[in-house]
């Protein structure tokens, strides 16, 4: 079952809407709370990343009997050094973004921690795609 959610770059007041929608679906599917929590935390981090850094993006969620596949795609500046971005505390967020309580440099590392599989593809000046897989069994 496939779902798609648009994300608006720079609109922090809406950051979290897609994660909430996915969470509601997973609850309706009777996915165990612990799995929901992990996935939704990862998803929320991803959503905030798009809002904070990219121009726009979208989240694709594909739910199958044994796994949930999520792909967060954005059009944005891209990540020049993915390895560096995966380190805790590393952040390129602007001061304005940090003042809103975002941009602590925990985004990607936290996503990795909460996903069974994480893959980041990025092209500087074009955009980033983060893929997450969470196993249901």
């Amino acid at each position: 079952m496939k779902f798609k959610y648009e994300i608006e770059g720079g609109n922090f007041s809406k950051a979290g809407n897609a994660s909430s929608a996915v969470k509601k679906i997973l609850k309706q599917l009777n996915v165990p709370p612990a799995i929901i929590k992990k996935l939704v935390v990862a998803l929320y981090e991803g959503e905030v990343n798009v809002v904070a850094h990219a121009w726009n993006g979208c989240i694709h969620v594909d739910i199958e009997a044994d796994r949930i596949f999520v792909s967060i795609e954005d059009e944005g500046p891209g990540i020049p050094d993915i390895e560096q971005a995966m380190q805790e505390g590393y952040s390129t967020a602007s001061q304005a973004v940090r003042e809103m309580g975002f941009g602590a440099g925990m985004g990607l590392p936290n996503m990795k921690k909460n996903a069974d599989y994480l893959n980041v593809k990025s092209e500087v000046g074009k955009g980033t795609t983060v893929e997450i897989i969470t196993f249901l069994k």
Partner: protein
Amino acid sequence: MVESGFYHALKVDEDKCFGCIHCMNVCPTAAIRILKGVASIRPDWCVDCGECMRACPVDAIFVEQDDFDKIFQYKCRVALVPAVLIGQFPEKVTEAEIFSVMRELGFTHVFQTEHTTGVITRAMVEAARDAEEKPAISSFCPAIVRLVQIKFPSLLDQVLAIKPPIDASAVYFRKRLEDEGIPSEDIGIFYITPCAAKIAAVKSPVGEEKSPINGVINMKFIYNKIYKLIKSRNETSSISPGEMLPLLSPGAIKYSLTGGEASLMEGRCLAIDEIHNVIEFLEKLEHDEIEGVDFLELRACDQSCAGGVLVGGNRFLTTERLNKRAKRFEGVADIPADIKAYTHFMANNLDIGPLEPRSMMALDQDMGEAMRKMQQVRHLMCFLPGIDCAACGAPNCQSLAEDIVRREAQLSACVFIQRMMEKHSKLSGEHALKIIEKIWGKNRLDKDCKKKGAENESNMEL
């Protein structure tokens, strides 16, 4: 109907209910449907918050309460009085006066619910300190505990498993009376409740197996009785000496008001009242959007217990009065002297036991089946108009679609689908009316000049 063992205090008076959608629209868990012209509450989904009761224009939703005479089944009749009852009365009425009147009504003992808040706070501070996951969530409000069980089961581990004052005080006073030599079966503890959720919590406690409370008395009922007696006394100026009680600390007096717990806890504490506000916040909390908060005080009613659905007085005035009363008791210790001898007993009796999830969100217990049903729901939503008019007897299109998939409703319940079916000659006008009567009751669309706002409204029976 299978009630799944959960007692609910809120009931629908089917004679008074005329089938409107006020209650259905405000229900925070979408637990209400209209069937045969009256509201029906789904027991698995209801958290007893009382929003429906507040919204009902004809007082058709009521709380089931114990008959007052039930107190006389016991030799030792204890009234457990929460501070918000005192807050109903004008300043010139003293606590002593209120309690002496209650004894005249038949109680042998009058105790204050907030007597144990000092002990509870101490236990909560410690538990919150040790909590693996922050923020720790208070278990004070029974409607909120039920809400977490059905809507936010992943947060259940964060709820502090410590008895709220009502239970802790009931356990404490029962023990003390037993120690005075009164047999347990002679002791009847009756809680004067400001809300429906506490009634449900007593009849069907979460966590604990059996409630230490024997009955609940509607605060509106007892308030009227007390006030009448106090008034008549003033007129005859025969004020009898009041019952002296250990004084409550300012913290205890304000405990059930918004901020009452949060102000006593350590670290960054937030107090959130009103159930829709709580839901909004818990949604955020669930995906770790909220960081660095240590404690959450969550209450289902606006202005917390002062805004309880069974509190007759204005909630803002009640809050103001209690704050003023609290000022008069500055310097009173948080833990009353009489509890000190029971420190060990209380430490062993504050736990509420495990809280089980009761998720009502799932379309099916089996994940594969739930997926199939969700696909059906999405397909149905392609056809439903998305107007959320509630004319089908469900609160919105999404709920109708889910009900259809659960085989609890039919697509033709939608008045817009009916139009389309009539257009394609798949439904006769007569049949469509029958469907509407099934939901809204027979003759519901007949002319009725006595209804609210109609020509002869004043003739309505009140």
